[in-house]
């Protein structure tokens, strides 16, 4: 019961970060700001959602897989942010 409540709170908090990230993507004025908003907020949002689901999953194997997926998404996401930022800067300088 307590586990379910905690999971709900974690998933709910994660969703708030996802929504914040998407709002940033839609509303912020330029590419760099939008990268800033999106990549950070979404990664922490996914982490919270994964943590909540790990509590519900009921096994260590599931929790470990969720952790692995989150770490992979974070590694890819940070690199992606770096690449897009560098690319758009190079494009501006030309």
């Amino acid at each position: 019961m307590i586990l379910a409540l905690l999971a709900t709170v974690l998933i709910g908090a994660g969703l708030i970060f996802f929504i914040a990230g998407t709002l940033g993507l839609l509303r912020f004025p330029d590419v760099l700001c939008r990268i800033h908003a999106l990549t950070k907020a979404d990664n922490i949002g996914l982490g919270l959602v994964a943590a909540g689901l790990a509590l519900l999953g009921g096994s260590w194997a599931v929790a470990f897989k969720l952790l692995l997926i989150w770490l992979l998404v974070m590694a890819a996401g940070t690199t992606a942010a770096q690449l897009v930022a560098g690319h758009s800067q190079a494009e501006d300088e030309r």
Partner: protein
Amino acid sequence: MNTLLLAAALLLLLTILAGLWRVVRGPTAADRMLAAQLFGTSGVGTLLLLAEAWQQPALRDVALIFALLAVLALVAFVRLRHEGAE
């Protein structure tokens, strides 16, 4: 609990669709690619939620593939683009 998980998945799907607006509008190519990256993260979240809600563990493997491959298109975009494109 199940309804809550499905509602959460629905909300994530809505953020994906909102991001589509950025893909259609741009203005720069980097914006479009960035939104596609958002689909990767939100898509992983949606799949994980659905895996739990429908008790379908294979969907976690789909999420794993998403996590591994979502960056691929973006890398290709940055590396393969030539001057004066679009």
